[in-house]
């Protein structure tokens, strides 16, 4: 029961966090009309996760038995791309440029699809991971750590409930945060989440030898802060903390953050240069 509770708390929290951020951002952008796609994404993901349980054998058999890791990596990479897309969109919308206000109406379908995909992929990944693990726990036998089907299901439900409650509490508190601080905060959080997702996609591909590890273990801080501990798990989800990463994971993480930072500052530099040129000639 404890195993099922903890796994659902962790996987559920990651999914609830993304869903919560997306809903809060939409509400504050005044785009509640898009919230329907969040609901659709969650619903489709729950159905797909359960369907996946029946297809799991087939998927695992792909790519010489590494299908699960490959799939995990692909889903994480696309979800990270969708987060990036949402961050770009929110930033452009916040700027309120006229050109973009028009294109925003035109590209409404793309936005809806992007949000649907982001929510669907995030919840689906956590969902199928959980389904596989819970399925394993149920089959782990009477001597196993699952403690039978009833205890596993009870633990899982309690875990999801706790995860949603924590995420809800975070966002209920977030309502009082001033608008600019709210958007800056959520965008930083989203970018960190995406960086962590990309790094763990790289981790999955390293684990099946699709990518070189380059250096197998850059640091090992699992003795100080294990990813299995509640606090370590929290940092792993929120900030992409990894107690024992390969160099490839570190490079992907830093590379993504570097690229986003460059995009943010590059945009600002571009904006400033014509002005400084003008003030210089004046």
């Amino acid at each position, binding site marked *: 029961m404890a*195993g099922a509770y903890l796994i659902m708390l962790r996987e559920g929290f990651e999914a609830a966090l993304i869903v919560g951020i997306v809903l809060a951002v939409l509400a504050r952008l005044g785009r509640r009309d898009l919230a329907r796609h969040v609901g659709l994404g969650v619903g489709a993901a729950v159905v797909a996760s359960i369907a996946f349980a029946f297809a799991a*054998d087939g998927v*695992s058999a792909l790519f*010489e*038995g*590494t299908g*699960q890791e490959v799939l995990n*990596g*692909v889903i994480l*990479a*696309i979800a*990270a*791309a*969708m987060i*990036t*897309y949402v961050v*770009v*969109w929110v930033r*452009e919308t916040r*700027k309120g*440029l*006229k*050109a*973009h206000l028009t*294109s925003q109406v035109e*590209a409404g379908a*793309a936005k809806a699809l*992007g949000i649907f*995909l982001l929510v669907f992929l995030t919840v689906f990944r956590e969902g199928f991971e959980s389904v*596989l*693990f819970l*399925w*394993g*726990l*149920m*089959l*782990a*036998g009477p*001597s*196993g*750590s*699952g403690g039978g089907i009833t205890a596993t299901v009870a633990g899982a439900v309690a875990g999801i409930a706790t995860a949603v409650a924590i995420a809800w509490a975070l966002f209920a508190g977030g309502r009082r945060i001033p608008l600019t601080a709210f958007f800056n905060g959520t965008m930083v959080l989203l970018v960190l989440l995406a960086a962590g997702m990309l790094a763990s996609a790289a*981790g999955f*591909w*390293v*684990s*099946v*030898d*699709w*990518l070189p590890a380059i250096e*197998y273990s850059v640091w*090992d801080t699992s003795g100080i802060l*294990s990813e*299995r501990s509640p606090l370590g798990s929290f940092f792993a989800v929120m900030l992409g903390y990894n107690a*024992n990463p*390969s160099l490839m994971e570190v490079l992907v993480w830093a590379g993504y953050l570097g690229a986003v930072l460059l995009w943010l500052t590059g*945009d600002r530099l*571009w*904006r400033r240069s014509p*002005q400084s040129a003008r003030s210089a000639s004046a």
Partner: protein
Amino acid sequence: MSRMPPRPGPIPAPPTSIPLLTLLACAALAAVAAPARAAEPIEIHIRDNRFVPDVVEVPANTKVRLLVINDGAEAEEFESYELNREKIVRPGGRITVFLPPLKPGEYPFFGEFHPETAQGRIVVKEPGK
């Protein structure tokens, strides 16, 4: 300090290209990163919620594949903090665990579902020692 009126920035490339680029990157990766064929995998069986053998010697700085075969009637999860691996093995199922080139030392692993009995370790040794 006088504020300059905001100038419209360049229209960024449509962000819709991001998902497409990711997919292309994944496909390219799959094409180039076909894993080099390693030597025969090392078999580890799971019987009565124990690993057989529970100590596996592998050469240092060499890619190795472990084939974990579950002969038992209960599911197990092969897990190692040190090796950063975590994978479920169904009853009667088998999984492949890819190990990167490792430095000499001991790397414990265990069965997450039966941690009291299912314990083992990989011993990495320099060849010829």
